[in-house]
């Protein structure tokens, strides 16, 4: 399976993990502690997120921390914002046209 940023956010657990990490970097154990599912399942999600580039890991002492890759996450918001603006423009043109019909 190809892993890209859209794959990363296609799953509710992964979105929840991203929301957690939006507050700050966490260890895999701390992340798993927030979910009812097994550590193994959570760690698989973290792995997918890492492969998608949605999160980075950093070493701190003996612990590995995961943090959000903000640049990658911006890609989605950025594009959605452009798409929204495009529709706004288009609809403004439609407003004008409707006045003439």
């Amino acid at each position, binding site marked *: 399976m190809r892993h890209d940023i859209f794959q990363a956010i296609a799953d509710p657990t992964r979105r929840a993990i991203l929301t957690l990490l939006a507050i700050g970097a966490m260890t895999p154990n701390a992340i798993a502690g927030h979910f009812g599912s097994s550590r193994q399942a959570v760690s698989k999600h973290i792995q997918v997120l890492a492969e998608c580039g949605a999160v980075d890991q950093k070493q701190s002492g003996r612990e590995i921390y995961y943090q959000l890759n903000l640049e990658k996450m911006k890609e989605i918001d950025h594009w959605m914002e452009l798409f929204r603006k495009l529709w706004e423009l288009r609809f403004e*043109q439609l407003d004008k046209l*409707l006045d003439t019909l």
Partner: protein
Amino acid sequence: MIFEKDLEKKQLHVMREFKAPVEKVWRAWTEAEQLDKWWGPKPWNTETKAMDFKPNGRWLYAMVGPAGERNWSNAVFTAVGTNTFDYKCTFSDENGVTNPDFPTVYWHITMEQRGDKTVVNVDVRFDDIAGLERLVAMGFQTGFTMGLNQLEELLG
């Protein structure tokens, strides 16, 4: 305007209210002459080459850029009802032959008159996540192949 994304379902939903009766809004969305006046956000213009608004009919149009560049799209109407219609759209050449490098985008449009206003709901569904990503990568709009930077410049 309401703009919602549901990436799990690979869908986008846009809702907008217009100060016009549904008959007029319907004409604006289904007559080539009217579509050409508003579909392409400036500085892009829409130029219809062929329009046959009925089930299995098609709308073949180009988005024409400021330098005269043409990006063709072929939309095939899959359902036409009262104040609602569906179509699937692909990038194409000027004869409407699909470019297989890009995914099909499915559109579902419904209109409803409320008092003297008309509410339009647009659902846009993508083939697959990879397809959505490809469209994102090229600064998507159906029939629209400009890069993100250009689009950003345009939208200011």
